[in-house]
Every structure is written in structure tokens, then in C-alpha cells.
């Protein structure tokens, strides 16, 4: 946007200063908004394992946790819209997930492995349609001192729907 012209008179110089000042002010405002909003709202994105290690230091802040839903643990009290379930640890790193055979595989294995760290979750609200065994849950909320994660927001992904596996039931045609 730097528009330069050869002859610069004093009056255009003055108006130029005004423009630069205006631009800089807006720029500062934008930077302030980005920085302050990041500080005010950023959340740690943790795995269940990391949360287990770091327990204590993250109690007072909103955090995000990702894990795999254990289907048997889902309980719903529809009178109070109180949803309880347990998630198990899955790696947070995409490369690690790929190395273990893709997200669907990781979710499947993690849901079967009792040795992995687990985390009980409580959520108040409507049961999301995608909540089921082996779904990946991304939860935003706070960690209670009782070791339960209180989720305000629940995002679910079922990669099996998109994953490219060889079909189970088939016939020659």
C-alpha cells in the first residue's frame, strides 16, 4: 500500500503523516485485540495422559482434552440432562497417530486397552448424536478436584465413517 510519488509538498507530507498515524492506530488496535484475546481465552489442548501427569496445575483454567469414548461407560440421566462417560487416552500428535495405523485404528485399540489412562467426564446438556463407542471426543471444560472432567462443550468425530477400510461383508460380483 506504500504509495510513493516523486514530488512531495509540505501539505501532502502533513496529510501523509495523518494517514500513517491513522493506519498505525488501527494496527495497534488489531494487535492489542489479538494478543489480549489470546491471553484471555487460550486453552491448553491436552491428552488424557498429559492431564493425568499434570493433575493439580490446571484445575483453575479452561482446558481442552481429546480422548476416545468408551461405549459401555455412557450413562444419561435424561431428567437432569446429565451425561456421564469415560474417555481413554489417545495420542495428540498426528504423526504418532499415523504411525499407529491411522485415527480409526488408534481409537479402536485405545478403547480396548485397559492399561491406558482414563478420564471420567460429566457434561450437562443434550446427548450429541455422534456420541458412541470409539468416537473421538474433544471436550472443553475444567478439571475438578475430584478427578472428574466437567465439560462445557463436546465435539465428536467418528472417523470410521470416512475411513477407507476394506468392507467386512462382501460377495463377488
Amino acid at each position, binding site marked *: *500500500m*506504500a*504509495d*510513493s*510519488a516523486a514530488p512531495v509538498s509540505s*501539505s*501532502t507530507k502533513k*496529510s501523509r503523516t*495523518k*494517514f500513517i498515524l*491513522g*493506519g498505525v492506530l*488501527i494496527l495497534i*488496535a*488489531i494487535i492489542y*485485540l*489479538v494478543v489480549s*484475546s*489470546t491471553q*484471555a*481465552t*487460550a*486453552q*491448553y*489442548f*491436552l491428552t488424557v495422559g498429559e492431564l493425568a501427569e499434570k493433575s493439580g496445575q490446571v484445575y483453575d483454567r479452561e482446558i*481442552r482434552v481429546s480422548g476416545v469414548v468408551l461405549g459401555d461407560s455412557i450413562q*444419561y440421566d*435424561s*431428567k437432569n*440432562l446429565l451425561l456421564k462417560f469415560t474417555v481413554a487416552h489417545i495420542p495428540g500428535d*498426528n504423526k504418532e*497417530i*499415523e504411525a499407529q495405523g*491411522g*485415527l*480409526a485404528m488408534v481409537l479402536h485399540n485405545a478403547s480396548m486397552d485397559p492399561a491406558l489412562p482414563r478420564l471420567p467426564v460429566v457434561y450437562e*446438556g*443434550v*446427548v450429541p*448424536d*455422534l456420541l*458412541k463407542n470409539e468416537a473421538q471426543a*474433544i471436550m*472443553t471444560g475444567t478439571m475438578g478436584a475430584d478427578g472428574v472432567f466437567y465439560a462445557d*462443550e463436546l*465435539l465428536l*468425530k467418528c*472417523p470410521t*465413517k*470416512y*475411513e*477407507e477400510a*476394506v*468392507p467386512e*461383508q*462382501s*460377495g*463377488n*460380483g
Partner: protein
Amino acid sequence: MLVNFGYGALLISFLTALYGIGAAIYGNRKNSWAWVESARLAMLVTFPLISLSALILIWLLVNDHYEVQFVYTVTSTAMPLYLKITALWGGQSGSLMFWVWLMTAFAFAVTFRKWDRDREFLPWVIVVSLVTLAFFLILILFVENPFERYWQLPGGGEIAAMFPPEGAEILRPMDGRGLNPLLRHPGMVIHPPMLYLGFVGFVIPYAFAIAALITGRSDDRWIRLTRRWTLVAWLFLSLGLVLGSRWAYDVLGWGGYWAWDPVEIAAFMPWLTGTAFLHSVMIQEKRGLFKRWNMILIILTYCLVIFGTFLTRSGVLSSVHAFSQSAIGPLFFVFIGLTFLVSLWLLLDRWNRLGSEGQMTSLLSRESLFLFNNLLFMGILAVCFWGVIFPLISELLTGQKVTVGPPFYERATGPLFAGLLILMGIAPLSAWGHSTYKTLGRAMWKPFLVSLLVPAAALFVGVRQWGAFLGLWLAAFVLSITLYEYGRGVFARKRATGETLPLAFWRLAGKNRRRYGGYIIHIGVVLMAIGIIGIEVFQTETQGTISQGQSISLDQYTVTYRSLAEFNTPDGRNVARAVVDVQKNGKPMGQLFPRRDYYYDAQQPMSIPGVRSTMEDDLYVLLVDWEPISEMGATFKIYHNPLVNWLWIGGFVFILGTMVAAWPDKDVEPKKVRMPARVAASKA
């Protein structure tokens, strides 16, 4: 057989694209028009070729050819025909194919225009379009091939591959897995195509911009040539965003219309730069300023389009839209990086040619308000971009992933959106070249006073939230100024010509479509803002479990549970459908039917709300849970969303305004208007 045809057509169009690129460059170097003409034919041919391939894929989808892996993953026998067709863009490889198909359609159309006056642009427009095409074809042909089939290996075991391994027999599953139930919605028919049309449409203005850079034409010819293309691309992108928002409101988001999901943001970012571009090209046309800036904007828009396609398709980010992880991620990165660097290098190379033809003198002139508008759009873009890449950056630097959610975006963009609304109010009254506080104030005080009535009325009906006050006042301010401006023009025309009011209104808009189309768009934005304020500030909700005959109350509404029925449908769903009576202030308002569909093939439920929608508010009822025997009771979640309908009405007005602005003019070659600042000011 057909599968091989489809793949073959893709392969041929890839080779044709490569040939076209070579022929265009060679023809340009040798100054041989025959070679360029041949390249142009190559570009023309790609569209029928890709169409053939895409139609074959659709045919496979419609006829349940589950031996094709893509077909198996996105359709099932029970799905209705229209969903089988839309399944084309229901998965990764098919949607890449669809992207390419639409892009070649645009390229096809642009090839047909008269090139006599702009011959030197042609080879480079061809090169840019075909390079983009070739990149996507590489993805489809070699990484995400929709024509791969399942094979039974002779030694046991199964694989998916394009060509049969030796001795392998084709494997045909009995039924497909079916489209993700979330996508089985009429929105699927129209939202993705509109968004994609918006995406691919921006390839054309970008191609012309690069052509202008390479040929060294520093005038605004490329902008005039692509103005309509840009508007059409922007129209589709806006339409895609609004429709997606509506779809989210109807089913996906349970009354949410915008979740600041990374993929939503990915589609929003090119819209931001595109909108900034639409505004700032006007300054180049009128005053010859901002030539470099416009180049930067269109380059950014193109890169963001590719980046947006990448974000939706690569699975780097956690999002409801994100599909599975895929190998196409790194390729996208390389392509975006390369295009960005090459474009930037070209721009820097021509930097000095693109100097401004004048100076900005007045801080309140139209062009300087446009400049501030651009800065604000860039600010919102910066917020969005930062939010999207922040988790990646934080992980890179600290090893710990830190994310930001909707609160971040709302907090950071709120003031910027408010700033844009203020500018939207002031700018139409300021003059090109020179404006002062005095002239602006004189033009503004009447509509300003009128706008104060709205917050006063809000106070009177009991609104106490300061955010709502400010928002409603801003909306009223812009609305009254825009209507005032429009009205002044219409009445002046009526006086001058003796036409009736509606005729004067119509002819005026027809005479300066961009200006009055723009005003209509602004009115649309304001109406949308009112809807957003309504749902964000005034939304209330409640929930409860009630047995038959019992009621839940929310604000002036009472919802009474009548009955519930469970039944199977021929397309493979089990439907639980509740009937509730709605009363408003004790008066019966009819019934709603919230339901829960369970899809057998996908083993997934889907909640569909019952909604009573009026201009004043929406009552939005969700069926959460129920006892098998309906007398026992059912659980409902109920939202009351005041004013939200204005969001959709505004969206409609917005699109209408864009159509007015994009409508072809009668005179094909508009005269060049380039006046010195002072003259422009006195005429405006």
C-alpha cells in the same frame, strides 16, 4: 470398464493441461498465435473431459457400484437418488473431483470470451488456470483416486487399487456404508456446490492479475475485465456461507448458526480478502491508487482459496468438517507455498510500474475510508488466521498444543465488525478526493437523529444489555443512512424525469448497478447483524422431562407434550417423532414435530428440531430422550431465539444486492472514468 474410462478421461485431461501450459508459454515466447490458440483449445477440452469423468463417477454412485471404494464409502442402497448424486462431494476424492469439474467450467467460460483487445493476457490466463488444474489432477490421479476398486487377492486378503493385481478378482460388497447422516439433508444439495463455485471462481481474477503482472500492463484493464467474475465468485462464496449457516441452524449445530469452526473460518478468510478487494478496486478505477495493494489482495484470496480447500480436506485441524487424515496435506503446502512465492516475486519485480497515479489528501475522503475498511477486513483476517494456526505454532514453539475457541474470535473481531459498520454508514456520504467533518456532518445529521430512535425504543421495551444497544444503534445508523441516500437518489430522479417512484427506484439501480447493488448489500448486512444480535444477546433456553399432557414454559411460550410415535422408513431410518402443542401468551399456535432419526446403516442417530419461525422470533424444540412407552414421558430442550429470522432475510437481501451489482451492463465497454481529485469531488 467405465471405471477405466473415467480414470482415462482424467489422465488425458491432465496431459492436455500439461500440453496447454507448454503450448501457451512456447507460443508466447515465439510470438506465435497458432500455438496460443492451440493452448486455448487444450483448455477448452479439459471441461468436457472432466465432465465425462465426473458423470461416470455419478453414474457409479447412482447405480450402487460398491466395488468402487469411493462409492462404497459414501452411498448405500437405501439412500434416495438426490443424495446418491450429492454423495459426489460427500467424501474426499469425490469432492476434489467436483472442485476440478467446477474449475474447468469457469475456465471453459473464460476461454470463450472475446480476446481481441487483450490478446497478451490469454497465454498467461491459460497457464495459471491449467497449472491450478494440473495440481488438483495430480492429487486425484495419484493420491486420492475416486475410481479405485476392491480386489480379492488369489492368496486371500483384499485390497483397494486402481489396477488389478495379478490373478485378483473384483470384490463387490452387498451394500455401501452410506453417507454420513449429518450430510443427508437438502442442504447437501446446495451448500457445498455454492461454496466450491465461490472458491474456484476466484481462480479467474487471480489468473488475470498474474497475466497483468507478467505482461507488465500496469493499467486497471485486468480489474475491469474480471470485475464481474470476481462479483460472481464472491456471490457464490457468500451464498455458500449463508446456506452453510442455515444448515447448521437447522440440524447440525442445534440452533447455532456459526461456531467459529476452523473449516468455517477457512471458507470465511477468502471471503474477507475478496470483500476487501471488491472495495479497493473501486479506488484504483476511480483514482488510480492502490495498484499494488489490489495485487496483494487477489494473490492472498487465491492462496486462501487453496488453503481453505486444504483445511477442509487434510484433517490437520479438529473440526466437525474434517475428513480423515490424508497424504494430500504436504502436497497442498508445497503448492500454496510455491504459488505464493512466485506471485510475490512477480509482484516485487513489477513493483515500480505499479505506482499510484495520485495522492490521498483527505482523511475523510471516500478512498481513505475505503482504505480503513480494508485495514479492518485485514484485521479480521489476521484474527482468523492467528486463531487457526495458533495451535500449530504453540505446539511447534513450546511442544504444548494451545487452542483458542469461539470466545477468542468473538472478543477479537467484535470491535472490528463494529468499526466496519460505522464505516459502512459514513462512507456512502463522503466524496471522492476530499471531504471534511463539516460536509460529512451536514450530510449525516438527519439520518443520525433518526437512528437514535432505535436504541430509545429498545430501552423502552426493556432492553438493558449495552452490547445490544450499541449493536442495534449501529444497525439503525447504517440502515437510515443507506435508505436516506437511496431515497434521495430516487426522489431526485423522480423530480428530474417525472417517473413514478417504483420506476425511478428501478431505473436508478439499473443506471449505477454497482453503487446501488452495494447499498442493497449493506442493507442485507445490517439485517443480518440484527438477527445475530437477537440470537446472541436475547436467546433463552430451558429443558425438562414431561409426561403426556404436561407443559414447559419459556418466555411467552408454552410447549405441551401430546404424543410420540416410533416407526421405520423405507430409506433405512427408525424415526421417533414427538407431537407438541405450542401456545403463545395462552393462544394456540399450532403443533411442532421434533424427532430423532436413527440410521441403521450408519448406526447413528440424528436429531431434527421442530421450529416455529416468525419475523419476531423462533421457537426451537429438540427431542432429547423418551421412554419406550410414550405415556411415560419425554425430555425436550427448548430455545427461544428472538429476531434470528432477520439473519436469513438479511442473507437473502445480501445475495439480491450482489446479483444487482453483478448483472451485466448494456454497454459492453464502460468508458474510462479517471478524473483529477478535485473534479471528482465536485461531481460526486
